[in-house]
């Protein structure tokens, strides 16, 4: 239990770190974005708008995360930002919705993920206390411990990156994806089979899990069709979210969600304040050209593409379309926390679908707003704060105010 627990919270941090690496390119501008994002150190909330990356076409063609990136005439930037912002919103809705659907479907059908069966070592305080005050105190303490673990792991990874221990980071990533793709999938499959009372013999199970896991490792760490890679990323985000939903106690989960979004916003603000455009060399991690080349060499193949890249359709023959480079990137940590929120709403809403739907709509609207801000500011933005705030507000208000109203209306068959 202990080993995969260790990779749980680090997973988000790992995702964050390697998302920086996969975004790196020889241009100083994107590197600056990368450094700034690095300094934000936020595990779950980095996001880059790729609309201003003109020089990406020199990228290694194997890096399919940056496929099809021709240059773009400079004057069209603002127009295209607004025009194509809406399209990116739609394209991000699909994977986020799919991840949430998988999590909600599992929560509603498989009883395992709603049963209380112990807690993570990161949340040692139990919530089975008689008084409300004590319970609140315990959940706040749990949150503090969790956040400090995340901060520690982020600093650790930054230090590793700075001292060029790339092999260590790479190995860590491979180990955590192995754990997710094999062990967690095996547990998930076992529980689903138990729920539907389907018997499966061990050889078939072994074959299934082996194929799923091996193809996943290849797709994520090496080459594969973009859609398949994204499907695997959705699956592992959903699995991570399910683990969180199962092992985080009730109140701690909500406080942690709130704290993570506050932390993301704070870190982003601090990062923005420290970033001084006039003195590019004065960033926390000085831009080191040799380090840049090193990282490029040691990750000649695509590094862990833990950022989610909506596939952009190609439009042949239209010159104006070519600047549709890559769309926006959304970190896997964001997927995980959105799904945790919606999953918790589904798990604790006393069989009520209205709460789940309300949280879902709130998160999507938060995502829209964040994308709008991204188009306006053209800087990396944390994706968590706005969506999670909306989600939390809507969860608590729908559960306490709207649910009794709608239930009373439905029982009297009144329609509004």
């Amino acid at each position: 239990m202990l080993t995969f627990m260790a990779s749980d919270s680090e997973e988000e941090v790992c995702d964050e770190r390697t998302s920086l690496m996969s975004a790196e390119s020889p241009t100083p501008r994107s590197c600056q974005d990368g450094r700034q994002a690095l300094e934000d150190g936020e595990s779950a909330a980095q996001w880059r708008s790729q609309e201003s990356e003109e020089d990406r076409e020199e990228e290694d063609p194997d890096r399919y995360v940056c496929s099809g990136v021709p240059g773009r005439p400079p004057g069209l930037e603002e127009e295209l930002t607004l025009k194509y912002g809406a399209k990116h919103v739609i394209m991000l809705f699909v994977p986020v919705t799919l991840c949430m659907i998988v999590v909600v479907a599992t929560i509603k059908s498989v009883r395992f993920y709603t049963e209380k069966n112990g807690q993570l070592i990161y949340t040692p305080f139990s919530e089975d206390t008689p008084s409300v005050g004590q319970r609140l105190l315990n959940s706040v303490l749990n949150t503090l411990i969790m956040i400090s673990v995340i901060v520690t792991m982020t600093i650790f990874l930054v230090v590793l990156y700075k001292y060029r221990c790339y092999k260590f980071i790479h190995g860590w990533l491979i180990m955590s994806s192995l754990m997710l793709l094999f062990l967690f999938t095996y547990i998930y499959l076992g529980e689903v089979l138990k729920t539907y009372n389907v018997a499966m013999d061990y050889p078939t199970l072994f074959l299934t899990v082996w194929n799923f896991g091996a193809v996943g490792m290849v797709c994520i760490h090496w080459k594969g069709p973009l859609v398949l890679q994204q499907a695997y990323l959705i699956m592992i985000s959903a699995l991570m979210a399910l683990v969180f939903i199962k092992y985080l106690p009730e109140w701690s989960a909500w406080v942690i969600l709130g704290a993570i979004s506050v932390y993301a916003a704070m870190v982003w603000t601090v990062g923005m304040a420290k970033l001084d455009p006039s003195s590019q060399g004065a960033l926390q991690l000085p831009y080191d050209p040799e380090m840049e080349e090193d990282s490029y060499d040691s990750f000649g193949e695509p590094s862990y593409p833990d950022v989610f890249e909506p596939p952009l359709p190609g439009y042949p023959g239209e010159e104006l379309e070519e600047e549709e480079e890559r769309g926006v990137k959304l970190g896997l940590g964001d997927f995980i926390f959105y799904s945790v929120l919606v999953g918790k709403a589904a798990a604790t809403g006393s069989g009520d679908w209205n709460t789940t739907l309300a949280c879902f709509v709130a998160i999507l609207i938060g995502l829209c707003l964040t994308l709008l801000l991204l188009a306006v500011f053209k800087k990396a933005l944390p994706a968590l704060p706005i969506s999670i705030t909306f989600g939390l507000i809507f969860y608590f208000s729908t559960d306490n105010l709207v649910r009794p109203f709608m239930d009373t209306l439905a029982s009297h068959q009144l329609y509004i």
Partner: protein
Amino acid sequence: MTLCAVKSQLASGETARPGQAFFWLVSLLFSSLIWFTTATLIGNKDEPREKYLLIFGVLISVLIQEMFRFAYYKLLKKASEGLKIINPYEKAPSMRLLAYVSGLGFGIMSGVFSFVNTLSDSLGPGTVGIHGDPPQFFLNSAFMTLVITLLHVFWGIVFFDGCEKKKWYTLLVVLLSHLLVSALTLISPHYGLNLVLAYVIMVLMGVWAFFVSGGSCRSLKLCLLCQDKDFLLFNQRAR
């Protein structure tokens, strides 16, 4: 160039739907808040009081929904004016399309919220109407949800058109018909009357919305006989 225009139009049209759904949700939130506070303030829960409270809640909710529809119209108007300033050569998304999409968003959200809990309960074990209530509970709910969704679509189209052409009586008619439909559901055990009247209102609103969006008897005939070559939603040609 036209491909760009069409796509951006679609894109902004499609983002209008979740936006309006969100606005409906917020309106529901406010109306439940009002109902809840009134209920707590009044205190004792005897049967007729609860019924009156519920009626009050329904009426307030309808009012707030229409207010939020108007607010969303204002928001969309401002957004498309902003877009026009930035991209003067770009064809702005048509207000009719936005009206349709926003009505659809409202309708879907309203329908889903009314119906999804009933739907999930219908899967479970149980007998409908075991205590003497009418056994057509689920059928009635389903048909009522359908009529409400379609009505929201038509109301959206008519409402936005009224706002565009500054015909304020249109808004009043939409509000009154919404109140009428909701009030009709108060006579709930008599499903027949309730449903039939609601469907009649829906057909009337549908016909009105059709003529408001630029349809005519001639275009309808051409469409039904498949003689209309330009049958596209985005076609802005006056018919």
